[in-house]
């Protein structure tokens, strides 16, 4: 216990070499016990409180080849998202709707647990959940992407790549995708009836119509007792339940996902987590971050 307390309080001071080695070996061999020691002091291995988020930084518009882009750093988790717009024929049964195609890639570069090759299960599941949120929330009304009814519509490919995976890629990616969409500027397109082709103007670019700005908050329950917010890649495998709540800028609920039993200290925590996500402080930060861009 003394060793754990020393580690917890010495984020600024340096430990002698021997102790650091012992701590990291203990972390590797007994991750659960290591984590429990910290939780007993109401702290987490990186020094955060149980309900504290990591520092978020957002950088938009740095990629010139993309029509819109965003780079999000949630602690060490880094996600780059770019939006490319192309033109296609709309579906027959919805001739005025464009397409929004989000995808998240978790390549081998971001973590030793991902091997090169086709998208892993985790990437597929996260892509699917992001697709659900972006479509269900109606972030970009698909009718606003119409160029010519029944002939030409915009297709927005929203591709996110994780560069460094330190847990909670879902929240970071949703933030990156919404920020990239907000940053996107589409060229003005005119459909020529005679040739059946669409030409775009290099000079005028119009921003997208964004109707809602969803953001999500992820929680995890450890050992049926503690609820932690924004888990890191060390904590994630130790949590038996993960909850993600997505809200929009007005506090409206967009999506709730729960994987696991969801019981902490004998009570169901789902409503508490939803209330946490709708917390006015969180929404203020959301709106504040959006307005700056």
């Amino acid at each position, binding site marked *: 216990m003394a060793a754990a307390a020393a580690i917890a309080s010495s984020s600024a001071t340096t430990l002698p070499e021997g102790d650091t080695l012992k701590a990291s070996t203990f972390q590797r061999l007994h991750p659960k016990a290591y984590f429990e020691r910290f939780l007993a002091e109401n702290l987490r291995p990186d020094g955060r409180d149980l309900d504290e988020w990591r520092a978020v930084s957002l950088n938009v518009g740095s990629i010139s*080849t993309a029509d819109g882009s965003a780079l999000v750093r949630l602690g060490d988790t*880094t996600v*780059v998202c770019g939006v490319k717009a192309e033109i296609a024929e709309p579906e027959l049964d919805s001739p005025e709707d464009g397409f929004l195609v989000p995808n998240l890639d978790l390549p*081998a570069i971001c973590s*030793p647990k991902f091997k090169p090759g086709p998208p892993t299960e985790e990437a597929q599941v996260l*892509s699917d959940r992001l697709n659900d949120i972006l479509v269900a929330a109606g972030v970009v009304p698909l009718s606003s992407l119409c160029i010519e009814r029944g002939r030409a519509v915009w297709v927005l*490919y929203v591709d996110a790549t994780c560069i*460094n995976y330190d847990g909670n890629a879902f929240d970071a990616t949703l933030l990156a995708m919404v920020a990239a969409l907000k940053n996107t500027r589409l060229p003005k397109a005119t459909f020529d009836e005679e040739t059946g082709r669409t030409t775009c103007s290099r000079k005028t670019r119009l921003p997208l119509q964004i109707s809602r700005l969803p953001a999500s908050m992820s929680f995890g329950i450890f050992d049926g007792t503690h609820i932690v917010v924004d888990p890191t890649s060390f904590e994630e495998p130790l949590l038996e339940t993960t909850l993600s709540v997505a809200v929009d800028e007005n506090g409206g609920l967009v999506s709730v996902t729960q994987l696991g039993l969801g019981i902490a200290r004998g009570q169901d925590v789902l409503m508490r987590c939803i209330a946490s996500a709708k917390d006015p402080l969180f929404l203020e930060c959301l709106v504040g971050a959006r307005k700056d861009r």
Partner: protein
Amino acid sequence: MAQSNFDRRRINGPDESFPPLFEADEEDPVHNLPRTRRGRSADDIRPIFLKAGLISQANGSAYIETERTKIACAVYGPRQSKTTVYSENGRLNVEVKFAPFSCTRRRAPIRDAEDRSVAVQIHQALWPSVRLELLPKSTLDIFITIIENDGIEGCIASGSVAASAALADAGIEMLGLVVSCAASTIGKEIWLDPTEEEARMASGSLILSGMPALGTITNVWQSGRLTPEETIQCMEACQGRCLDIHTVVAQALLDNAQVT
């Protein structure tokens, strides 16, 4: 062009979609050869921003940015080789991935021949510099993600610099840092570090990789139409520039080591 791959592991869009066609531009850069280079002189390279250690999950990493080329590189290793065949020397495995939004036309996430050829060039540039004889039965995995692409020459050159810096950041023993420089011939002049536009107008391009610390060359890749004299001139120009790039890379690694 149309991308009609239905990938069941990803969210798919419509069967076919086309990149936007723009109205004809007044100036067509392909046909007008400008007399002088825009913005810099013939032997100026673009400023390099290099930062090591940004990817915490990897053993070593580097991020390089030269105006419009942005590349992230991570090194994992030495780790155990998957194959059962005993190998006295370690293996060096380089994988390159272009982000879908990195090029002017969206690239499908599927890896194709271009990724592979860039990876092979970077592998050839790095291989002589790493002391693989000290890592039996091990593999060094180098993963490169190209976030923004401004010409293949720039990608290969910056990619090999980033990979070498990442290897140094990972503490892998090497004979020297590998740096690369690209050159193109436009008319009678040799322009160093060409952008995509400039490389397209050029009659020939050359990328030279070497270890300035030892004064050796590890890889030369030439494409297009160059006379032997022009090739030698390009190589000499690149070699001279490599010394400067080496100083920048060494300084960036030193700064990073002093901070941590």
